């Protein structure tokens, strides 16, 4: 196996509050290989964006990386100084956020925003940087790029703006892109365009992508592997086809059952009772045990092990294939 681009080991992100220290991300480990798209799914509050923000070093005050290691291309990055981290961001890690309007400065022409980023990270003259900005816009499919570099963000539609944000993330040729809900604010037809674009760029350049989303359909079509998070912990990780069609963790199974697309022809959706526990009141054992219909005393008492099974694993005492006893 080739060396992974990103490697997260036992990452713990803590939130310090007046009353207690809460774990927003608890002992999460995963790798992303070159050219691979890892989908990170989970419901709101599962800690999926928090893990992404930890990688780019954007955690601020009550949040902090308390434990674990983050390695980027064989170099440890979680203990870098602010200044070194700032240089790394953009150069090695590109980021695409959910809302393309707030990711761009409304007062600066998009060409200048691109040139600024390019000159910050690559040793190029202004002329060369401008040429490069135009080719970056062409690459993400913006028509008449040479003319549009002089436009302001408000002159673009939502989908076009998200393309500009992707061009910004890619212009310094990073080896890793973190895409945090990149298509959630967009319409389906535009979403299809953006996903096709991300997949093409990833294939052509061998960029690793961490795709954070809550949409199982997007994950199925885009990702190679998928990590399912629940209450800050990794519930299950594995190749996307295995995890979605043959889930090992009851939570993944419940999530798939709740998806209307998977219930075609059924009268009722299969629902998971209850809702995700608050971080301050996490159950003692498995965080999913209060909602799990297979939970036993053991699940309530002890946190689940990392059951290694082939390429993927599920953090469950009784992964779905085995008989539940107890």
């Amino acid at each position: 196996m080739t060396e992974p681009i990103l490697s997260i080991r036992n990452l713990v992100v803590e939130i310090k509050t007046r009353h207690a220290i809460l774990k927003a991300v608890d002992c999460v480990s995963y790798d992303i290989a070159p050219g691979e798209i890892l989908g990170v799914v989970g419901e709101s509050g599962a800690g999926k964006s928090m893990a992404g923000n930890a990688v780019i070093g954007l955690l601020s005050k009550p949040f902090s990386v308390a434990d674990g290691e983050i390695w980027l291309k064989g170099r440890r990055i979680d203990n870098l100084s602010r200044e070194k981290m700032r240089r790394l961001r953009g150069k090695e890690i590109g980021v695409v956020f959910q809302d393309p309007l707030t990711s761009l400065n409304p007062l600066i022409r998009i060409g200048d925003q691109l040139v600024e980023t390019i000159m910050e990270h690559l040793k190029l003259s202004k002329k060369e940087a401008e040429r490069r900005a135009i080719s970056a816009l062409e690459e993400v499919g913006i028509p008449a790029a040479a003319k549009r570099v002089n436009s302001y963000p408000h002159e673009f539609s939502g989908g076009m703006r998200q393309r500009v944000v992707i061009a910004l993330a890619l212009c310094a040729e990073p080896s890793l892109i973190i895409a945090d809900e990149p298509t959630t604010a967009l319409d389906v037809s535009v979403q299809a365009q953006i996903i096709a674009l991300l997949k093409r760029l990833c294939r052509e350049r061998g960029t690793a992508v961490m795709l954070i989303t809550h949409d199982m359909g997007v994950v199925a079509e885009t990702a190679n592997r998928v990590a399912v998070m629940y209450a800050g912990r990794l519930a299950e990780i594995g190749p996307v086809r295995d995890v979605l069609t043959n889930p090992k963790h009851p939570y993944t199974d419940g999530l798939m059952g709740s998806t209307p697309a998977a219930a075609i022809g059924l009268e009722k959706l299969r629902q998971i009772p209850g809702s995700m526990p608050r971080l301050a009141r996490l159950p003692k054992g498995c965080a999913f045990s209060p909602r799990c219909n297979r939970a036993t005393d053991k699940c309530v008492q002890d946190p689940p092990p990392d059951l290694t099974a082939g390429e993927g694993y599920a953090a469950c005492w009784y992964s779905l294939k085995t008989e539940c006893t107890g």
Partner: protein
Amino acid sequence: MSTLVSVKNLSKVFDVSKPWLNRVIERLPKAHLTATSDVDFDVEENAVYSLVGESGSGKSTIGKMVVGLLQPTEGNVEINGVDLASETDIEIIKQSRTDIQMIFQDPYASMNPRWRVRDIILEPVVASNGDTEGLAEKLLEQVGLAAEDATKFPHEFSGGQRQRICIARALASAPKLIVCDEPTSALDVSVQAQVLNLMDDLKSELGLTYLFISHDLTVVRHISDRIGVLYLGRLVEEGTPDQLFDAPKHPYTQMLISSAPKIDGFGREVDPPQGEIPDPIDPPSGCAFHPRCPIATAKCKSERPALRELDDNRVACHLA
């Protein structure tokens, strides 16, 4: 089954002109945005009729006109034979208003944070001087919450629970029709499943009719009896979920369905659709979809296709 809601030639035009002084100085003409144009559909009693479309297709505008929050520019909406916009008998107006309720998208913004849940739920009944004895508690239990929750404030609930409270409030005046504007878009999948199942149960228990507005094709396919697809304020296709998803006839519906991500579409390479929704202030001539349509002809550019019957569907396309 009889028809509960009948929408005829419904159009809504918004005036989006600049202030008159700017118009005079800059010599600008008046600008009009056609949000909805010539929409025609019927909703059967105890059925779910869904309107789908991308942003700017006019689906929420139609919902607001149905409940009477907006006045139509042209056309009318009849609910149980009553047109609220032209009815003059105050008793009939009062009765029809209690027959219609609405559920909104954002359960955080649609409740007064300083009111207790009981007051929130009872407001539609209090407004019409109805009997409120024990009603809030009964409704809370009906939507899967506890009777004790009536004394709490909205901030004590999660998004899914808040949406249940909104449903309880909508049920309070014993309505016949509930207009649901993206009721599950702000919710997580597992909570969305709970809310959709609850809405389905209530529909059969209480004989409700839903006008369901959504952009999520998978949700719409699951819940609807009949679906209308909107594009740029016009109804382009209407049919049952199976007809629409298995054999879409309008090129826009085909594009919408093929570009929606599939849960079993592992590694699927879609040929993404070209272009985006045009500017509604300056819509294309003829069929509004022709600039993006792969099979458009000269006729599509000049002549607007009428919505016509085709098998059991209705389609607005020259070539279908």
